[in-house]
């Protein structure tokens, strides 16, 4: 039931309400899952999917039947891994072997994990993880291999971080560390999904030859989340903004949140946003390699949300005080626009790039760099959907010689025209003269013709008084009667 405040909100933002209605009423899923044919363990797996993910379950559930189950299981496996990693109540010596061994767990019938703390929100998934394993056994071996490979690498990466005492105390140090962390938790997901898409024949295999693109797909989403969640993470005692960035602006991480450092905090946030923005053109490039509508939607919707979120965070001090979110109306509009074609998604990116551009502050240390990153997005879009074609060659002269030649030709053409018109005039004149001459010889009365012509012209122009003429004619005819 909508609250009175939200009703009031939509009264003043009818466009957003319109987008919500549009999405809810008119959106037809590309593919629908057929629940009637599902066994109990699969149903339970889908139950966990909708339970553990609000944003991803919707797009996963619309995926092409070929990939629906593999991708859903991939998500649940990684969610399980994440639930072990996140839980600070599990001691390291217990956590590490689970993380490093998770790919093997996938093949152990009936494996479950009950040692999560009671407050861990997704603990039930691990308690009943045997259903996921049950379903995992049924998917194609090629898909299983991909999921296992990614799980192995991500689990080891997470274990490395869990082991790294410095990381646990001070958070992420350099930008390189930051991107490595994002690689483990998101870049690898991009790789795994891409391999699944290509294996299923739903994406261009060339995507695998450009690994930086799938990496950017994951990095972009993860970096946006980290940038947006700074306050929430602080409250949970975690910090993911790299020291290399915030230390340029404040001495201590906590200082970012002090009101007197407002401008410095904003400058630090725009550097975070810039780091993410530099991945945006890669993401559009990646989307160009997808072949199937449901896969396109699955990939494009989160990306559009991400750039809109960046816009929301940009030069917004709320970032340091509360959770910054895009409105529900905007989210629905983005979903509508991102579930059609690449050109519309490019429009979304361009629109948000320009929104960010409008608020770019010339006194921010990264002002010009941000402008360049936005320009790069626009230029990339132009390179795939050019708004301007090469102009028609108007054949301007390319050299002095040509210019002179053209001038000479133009001049010649002018005289040619004059000669031609004179020749025609002369010919017509001569013929006319001869015709008249022959007519005259034959007895034509040009004097009468001339007189009548004058008369008629006079009539036409109204210089002769008409009634007089009529009388005259009348009289004349009377005589002849006599």
């Amino acid at each position, binding site marked *: 039931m909508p609250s009175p405040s939200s009703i009031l909100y939509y009264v003043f933002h009818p466009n957003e309400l319109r987008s919500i209605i549009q999405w809810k009423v008119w959106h037809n899923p590309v593919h629908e899952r057929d629940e009637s044919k599902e066994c109990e363990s699969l149903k339970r797996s889908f139950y966990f999917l909708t339970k553990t993910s609000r944003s991803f379950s919707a797009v996963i559930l619309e995926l092409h039947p070929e990939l629906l189950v593999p991708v859903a299981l991939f998500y649940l496996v990684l969610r399980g891994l994440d639930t072990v990693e996140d839980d600070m109540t599990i001691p390291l010596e217990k956590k590490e072997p689970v993380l490093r061994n998770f790919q093997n767990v996938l093949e152990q019938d009936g494996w479950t994990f009950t040692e999560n703390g009671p407050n861990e929100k997704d603990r039930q998934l691990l308690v009943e993880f045997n259903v996921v394993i049950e379903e995992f056994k049924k998917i194609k071996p090629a898909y299983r291999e991909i999921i296992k490979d990614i799980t192995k690498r991500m689990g080891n990466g997470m274990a490395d971080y869990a082991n790294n005492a410095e990381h646990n105390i001070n958070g992420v140090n350099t930008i390189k560390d930051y991107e490595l962390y994002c690689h483990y938790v998101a870049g690898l997901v991009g790789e795994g999904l891409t391999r699944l898409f290509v294996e299923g024949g739903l994406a261009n295999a060339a995507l695998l030859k450009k690994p930086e693109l799938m990496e950017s797909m994951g990095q972009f989403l993860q970096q946006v989340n980290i940038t947006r969640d700074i306050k929430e993470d602080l409250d949970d005692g975690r910090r993911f903004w790299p020291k290399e960035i915030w230390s340029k602006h404040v001495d201590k991480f906590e200082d970012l949140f002090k009101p007197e450092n407002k401008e410095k905090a904003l400058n630090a946030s725009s550097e975070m946003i810039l780091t993410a923005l530099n991945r945006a053109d890669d993401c559009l490039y990646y989307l160009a390699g997808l072949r199937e509508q449901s896969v396109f939607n699955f990939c494009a919707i989160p990306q559009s949300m991400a750039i809109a979120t960046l816009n929301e965070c940009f030069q917004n001090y709320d970032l340091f005080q509360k959770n910054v979110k895009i409105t529900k109306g905007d989210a629905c509009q983005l979903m509508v626009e991102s579930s059609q074609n690449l050109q519309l998604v490019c429009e979304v990116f361009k629109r948000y790039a320009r929104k960010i*551009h409008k608020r770019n*502050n010339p006194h921010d240390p990264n*002002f010009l760099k941000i402008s*360049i990153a936005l*320009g790069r997005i626009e230029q990339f879009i132009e390179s795939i959907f050019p708004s301007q074609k090469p102009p028609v060659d108007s054949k*301007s*002269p390319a*050299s*002095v010689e040509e210019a002179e030649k053209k001038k000479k030709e133009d001049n010649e053409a002018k005289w040619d025209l004059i000669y031609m018109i004179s020749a025609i005039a002369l010919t017509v004149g001569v013929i006319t003269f001869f015709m008249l001459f022959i007519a005259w010889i034959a007895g034509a009365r040009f004097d009468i013709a001339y007189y009548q012509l004058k008369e008629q012209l006079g009539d036409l122009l109204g210089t002769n008084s008409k009634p007089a003429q009529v009388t005259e004619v009348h009289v004349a005819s009377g005589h002849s009667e006599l």
Partner: protein
Amino acid sequence: MSSLESIPSLGKVVVVGGCGFLGSHIVSYIVKHHPQTRVAVLDLRTSSNRNASANVSYHDGDVTDVASMKALFSQLKPDAVIHTASPHFNLGPEILDKVNVQGTKNLLQAAQNAGVKAFVYTSSAGVVLDAVTELVNADERWPLVTGKAQPEYYTTTKAYAETAVLEANRKPESFLTCAIRPAGIFGEGDVQLLPKMVSAYRKGQTKFQVGDNNNLFDFTYVENVAHGHLLAVVALLKTHKILPTVPLDTERVDGEAFFVTNGEPVYFWDFARAVWHEAGDRLPLKSVWHLSADVAWMIGTVLEYTFWALGKTPNLTRAQVRYSSMSKYHSVSKARQRLGYEPIVSLDEGVRRGVRYILEQEEKVGQKKGQ
């Protein structure tokens, strides 16, 4: 192609206009990156912007005098020629014809006579820009705009010279040419772009902004332009080595023109504001007055006629309105693919260097006055 960067010597290179803004940067680039190259600078007057390296020699000469050019070239016997000389933009058509077109032809003749292998000409990105159309990610397929369609006679002469250079390619077979088209060059020693922007700040013009500022614009830091020229020289010399084999059409450098920019198009006023910030401006974004392009155009028209009657140039002209509200940026894919070009100095670093140079020069002048 980056391995070519480490070639210590390119033999003997003549830099025509080597005491000018771009030319002097090309000379320092050669001294820095190809240190064993012998550089001969040819300029009308060689007293300013001289490089201290012992490998650089200076020769006074006039490109409009074909006999003296031939004599000099047969004495120097260069391997490569980089022709950057150009008279000032605003000079009359006769001098533009004489230097840009005839001067370039004289140099081509002299170079052909002296057995030069590579000839690189500094053209201009403006050769594809007419009076009405914007340039959105324009590439080398865009046709030349000259004569009546070209608003600047200077640019017409640059285009004519470019054609002359490209037509001279492989005449004789061992003479290879190409043209570089830079867009909006700026940097230390530039007399057009940054000094004008800095003086606009001093006059308090940062309060105004024309147009919606969604127009992307190419600016190019001078060292990147120098880098592009030298990549072209290296590529031509490399093609020369494999003569008489002709490279594939998609890899060819000889006989071709290349746009060279920073590859970082930015919104026009963002560049200006970055320059102003570097020069000391701290005006908050919200205090800026936004003028629509149409209104500014009308004001410009009125001002231009009023000031014309007074015999002066106003602070706001229609040409400025157009340039500040139009998109003008290029694709540098061709230079990337065929020359291995990648800008070596980013735009913001270039702005920092260029503006600091102006401020330092002013300080020096101030100190001299103080003494």
